[in-house]
């Protein structure tokens, strides 16, 4: 085994040394960085845009809320057809040839958007509500074809819906019990009850927001708020922050791929970007062993600037 003690002395032999107080440098750097951090913290504070609640969503954009809830009931929403790890669907499964890790990982959440987002909460809210109980019973006893007919007709009608006193109003039609279900779901949501019902999941303590976040993500209201805060992917939102604060600027390269071909048009863009970044990270980690890349520092004379005193000394 080599002796680094001797090696280090041999390695630097012939190069003049100077006094160097490592701990003093650390303390000074700690104080200096602390001053910068404290000045920024006092002067600029930190971003704080309150989270969106389902209650606020239902109050501010009832048509979007009901349209989304209807698609959840029909199982046609983004989440409903997503695929692993939420459902058994396949709409959002990304593969690269035979490489299908999302498929291989399987359905871990077992989400049923109709039951979890609509029928389950309404079942809880139906206690003492005869109209809702009857509507749930009618919906539950109908066959799939009938249900899809109601939901399809109602979805079409929602495109011309208006609001009246906060309620969603559609033209008269053959919607079965769907309007009663949606009206009651809206009532629960506007009271704030749906936020709790989607989170509870049968447990007293709960920290898993998968269901309410997926539900809100299926609507367009949250996306509108995000666009106002320049957080969309097309706005390089991955590296942005709400307000005028800096975000995760260090994700600029990750964000960049989504803006350029072939990534910005690929149906498996996420998988392609992740694999690209994984490859680049491995290249970065193993630069010392990769010919040409490891020689770049010799070709670009930035080291002549960094060690200019040394090279000047070498010439004397």
């Amino acid at each position: 085994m080599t002796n680094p003690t001797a090696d280090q002395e041999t390695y630097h032999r012939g190069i003049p040394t100077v006094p160097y107080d490592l701990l003093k440098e650390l303390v000074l750097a700690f104080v200096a960085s602390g001053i910068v951090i404290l000045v920024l913290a006092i002067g600029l504070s930190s971003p704080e845009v309150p989270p969106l609640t389902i209650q606020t969503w239902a109050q501010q954009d009832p048509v979007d809320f009901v349209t989304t809830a209807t698609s959840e009931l029909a199982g046609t929403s983004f989440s409903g057809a997503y695929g692993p790890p939420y459902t058994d669907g396949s709409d959002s499964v990304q593969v690269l040839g035979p490489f299908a890790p999302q498929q291989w990982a399987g359905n871990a959440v077992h989400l049923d958007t109709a039951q979890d987002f609509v029928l389950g909460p309404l079942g809880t809210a139906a206690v003492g509500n005869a109209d809702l109980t009857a509507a749930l019973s009618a919906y539950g006893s109908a066959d799939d074809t009938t249900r899809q007919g109601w939901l399809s007709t109602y979805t079409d009608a929602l495109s011309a819906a208006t609001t009246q006193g906060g309620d969603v109003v559609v033209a008269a039609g053959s919607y079965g019990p769907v309007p009663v279900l949606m009206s009651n779901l809206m009532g629960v949501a506007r009271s704030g009850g749906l936020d709790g019902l989607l989170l509870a999941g049968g447990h007293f303590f709960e920290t898993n927001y998968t269901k309410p976040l997926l539900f809100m993500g299926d609507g367009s209201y949250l996306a509108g708020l995000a666009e106002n805060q320049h957080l969309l992917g097309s706005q390089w939102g991955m590296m942005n922050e709400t307000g005028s604060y800096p975000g995760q600027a260090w994700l600029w390269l990750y964000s960049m791929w989504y803006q350029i071909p072939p990534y910005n048009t690929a149906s498996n863009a996420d998988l392609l970007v992740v694999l690209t970044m994984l490859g680049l990270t491995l290249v970065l980690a193993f630069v010392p062993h990769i010919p040409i890349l490891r020689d770049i520092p010799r070709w670009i004379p930035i080291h002549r600037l960094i060690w200019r005193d040394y090279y000047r000394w070498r010439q004397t």
Partner: protein
Amino acid sequence: MSTPSSAPAPEPTDASWTAATRRFLERRLPLTHLLPSRQPFFVGSWVYVFGVVAITALVWVIGSGIVLAFFGPGWFHVSALGRFVNSIHFWGVQLFFFFVVLHLWGQFFMASWRDGRAKTWLVGVVIFVAGLVTGFTGYVSQQNLDAQWIAINAKDGINATGAGSFFNVLDFGQMYGIHVMLLPIFVTMLVVLHVVQVRMRGVVNPIEPKVPAGRSKPPTDVAS
């Protein structure tokens, strides 16, 4: 009846794990290297400060993070003092990454992996990646609009890799636990390892010009 010997056993014959560990540390990391009071004069360049500032920014981040963790994730939303501590945390992270990136580029253009330092470079890259994951889990743990939107969008990239089945960015409890517990310990241990690696071998010598053809070494090869 034998009597205990007052003379210590000769070092080479002491095969205990403790003695072996002591001998290893004395050989590989003597205190004069861990806490040097002299360094080659070229260490005076400002580029050597970047890594030090990154470490001190990390101390501010961890310190403010401990306070935030103590009072709970909802504290800074309802308390002016909590908001101030969160601001320290926020700007500390920004400063940390700023200097980590400067440090990384500086070390790249110095080709600091030379002369047996490839593992030091590798650990540095792992720290950078672990820092990205730590930052990400922090952003989705903020409990504000930004956290909601980041989680909803980031899930697709993570799900595409299959990791979404066990790393659920929509599960606040999982992200928060990882952010305040596992990753800070991991990053801190890696930073300590990184510093020890640097101190064990010392700073890398400046890049020497290519040896001209027909000569075995530079005319004044101070590195040999």
